[in-house]
């Protein structure tokens, strides 16, 4: 791989953290046939929940933070609990304490304490053609597909390495060739709201690590958030196109590609197959974290009808603080609004065995990451049924 003079100097004579970061990027670049390292304008790092990375992750991050400093704006994924509400949630003190140490390690490195899986809803919106180094699969899918920025599906350490060096290996979704669709997904039904999660689950299962080109429907940015999150969970897609909507769809050729059809019946089947529980203990909303608009919409729904089981909402700190009225509404009806954490990375399984959620991503991960049962359904239907 070709290194610039400055990059070669970092590899040879940088601080220990810089040398390690360069070695990670060179190893991954060589493994994947990258030509060089491309400069990035931002980084987003996953791997902040103590529940997921445990003592090994905590130990590494604290060691690394001794001299690692990020050189581009860097955001970080949700923590394993809301550190301002952990006592009320019944989280063990040792868990909260270790979670706090992970957060401190990231902050020492200069990472912005966003603790969010939706950096694109917090003002981090790279433009068309901008190279970035993001991990967190839903954010990767959104950045590539909806914003037209360029990032591979980075892992936590590789995104952190890119943040420290300011560059990432140039291959895959950073290259125009890597952004061409491999399969057309013709959707024969008109998706609304919750359907986007189901469509993502179905398409992800069928295209695997391919790059789908959807046609047959229009969608808002919020719809595409839920589509991409589910698509990147059941499949390992880092990007999709949607004809007439996403910024790079017009410029690609689809002639000769295999075509998959997704019907209304496929969506219904997905909902059934991802529902493996009944009688949920909680309705959980998040994964990815809700935006301000989505938070307010939930508040309006619970205002109309008080739910019998608690509603737990996961959102960003910024959205929670910007919407005190919505938070009050939800909390006054037995609900909880958590910030800085999210559905499947939070410590929740000690309280609830079965979770009802409209999130396709949540339905995909809860059974394995949290050993919980799932009821997958539309939020309005859930509130209707459990009110």
């Amino acid at each position, binding site marked *: 791989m070709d290194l610039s003079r400055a990059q070669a100097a970092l590899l040879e004579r940088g601080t220990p953290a810089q040398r*390690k970061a360069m*070695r*990670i990027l060179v*190893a*991954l670049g*060589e*493994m994947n046939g990258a030509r060089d390292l491309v400069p990035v304008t931002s980084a987003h790092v996953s*791997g902040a929940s103590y529940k*997921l*990375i*445990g*003592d*090994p*992750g905590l*130990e*590494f991050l604290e*060691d690394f933070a001794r001299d690692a400093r990020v050189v581009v704006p860097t955001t970080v994924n949700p923590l394993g609990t809301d550190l301002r509400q952990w006592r009320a949630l019944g989280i063990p003190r040792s868990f909260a304490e270790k979670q706090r140490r992970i957060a401190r390690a990231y902050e020492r490195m200069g990472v912005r304490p966003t603790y969010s899986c939706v950096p694109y809803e917090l003002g981090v919106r790279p433009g068309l053609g901008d190279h970035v180094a993001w991990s967190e699969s839903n954010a990767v899918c959104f950045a590539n597909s909806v914003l037209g920025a360029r990032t591979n599906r980075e*892992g*936590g*350490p*590789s995104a952190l390495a890119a943040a420290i060096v300011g560059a990432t290996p140039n291959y895959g979704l950073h290259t125009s060739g890597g952004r061409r669709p491999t399969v057309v997904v013709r959707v024969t039904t008109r998706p609304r709201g919750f359907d986007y999660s189901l469509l993502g689950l179905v398409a992800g299962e069928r295209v695997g690590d391919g790059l789908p080109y959807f046609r047959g429907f229009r969608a808002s940015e919020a719809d595409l958030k839920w589509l991409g999150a589910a698509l990147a969970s059941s499949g390992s897609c880092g990007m999709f196109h949607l004809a007439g909507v996403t910024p790079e769809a017009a410029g690609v050729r689809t002639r000769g590609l295999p075509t998959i059809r997704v019907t209304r019946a496929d969506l219904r089947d997905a909902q059934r197959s991802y529902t493996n529980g009944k009688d949920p203990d909680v309705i959980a909303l998040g994964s990815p974290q809700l935006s301000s608009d989505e938070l307010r919409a939930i508040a309006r729904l619970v205002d109309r009808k008080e739910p019998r089981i608690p509603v737990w909402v996961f959102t960003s700190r910024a959205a929670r603080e910007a919407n005190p009225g919505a938070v009050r509404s939800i909390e006054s009806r037995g609900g909880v609004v958590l910030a800085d954490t999210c559905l499947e990375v939070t410590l929740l399984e000690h309280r609830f065995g079965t979770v009802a959620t409209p999130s396709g991503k949540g339905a995909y991960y809860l059974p394995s990451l949290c050993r919980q049962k799932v009821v997958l359904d539309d939020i309005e239907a859930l509130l209707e049924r459990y009110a």
Partner: protein
Amino acid sequence: MKVLARPIAPGRASAIATVSRVPFSFVGGADPVTGRILDRSTDAAGTKLAGRTFAFPHGKGSTVGSYVLYGLVKRGRGPASIVNARAEAIVAVGAVLAGIPMVDGVDVAGLRTGDRVIVDADRGFVDLPDVRAVPVVTAILRNAGRILLVRRSGRVGSFRGRWSAVSGYLEGHEDTRDRARREIREETGITRARFRGTAPAIIARVGTTAYVVHPFLFDVPTRRVRLDWENVESQWIRVDDLGKYATVPRLADVVAAVTA
């Protein structure tokens, strides 16, 4: 035996090998405190990783494995080096973080637990000083969906009576593909063989001897075969039937490497 390898994480280490034939996850596969291997499918369960060259096909499982490897090496409970057939990000990142040498592109099925191994990721090779390398070429001949097996005669130096593909020893620094063509001419009389592909070397171990097999695939226009003294009979078989024949070691892997 010295084989070329692709450097993944820099450094050089000499150690005794622990070999797993199956992919490995550092999360759940090894005790993060003691470095004891827990995964029973590895044939190395119960042994400790500390100070060993750990060879396995490739990593799998949770990405937290990178941090587990880091922590093990930091406490002196981790491997001295890593050899993979095909590196992936979890183990590669873990080896870099831990600061241990790692290479890939090596047929780890040719390594044995207990082998003395030098991993040189700076110069890109793996050396087994106690193992004698015997470089050979093996040419899989294909005609209309069948491949040629020949049964080795009693007059050859090794694997007498076993089924094999056309093969021969490499001499000096000759080109492997040229040698393959010459063996095809000598052993079958076929002169018009079309090169279709090759693959990284397969290592067939017999005690302290390692046959380093360079596999080739050729399409040939005829099934008429004129054997020389090295073989006593020949058969054109379907690849699926290979398991019914008593073959030289790892012939199935050689066939799979070039026909997959």
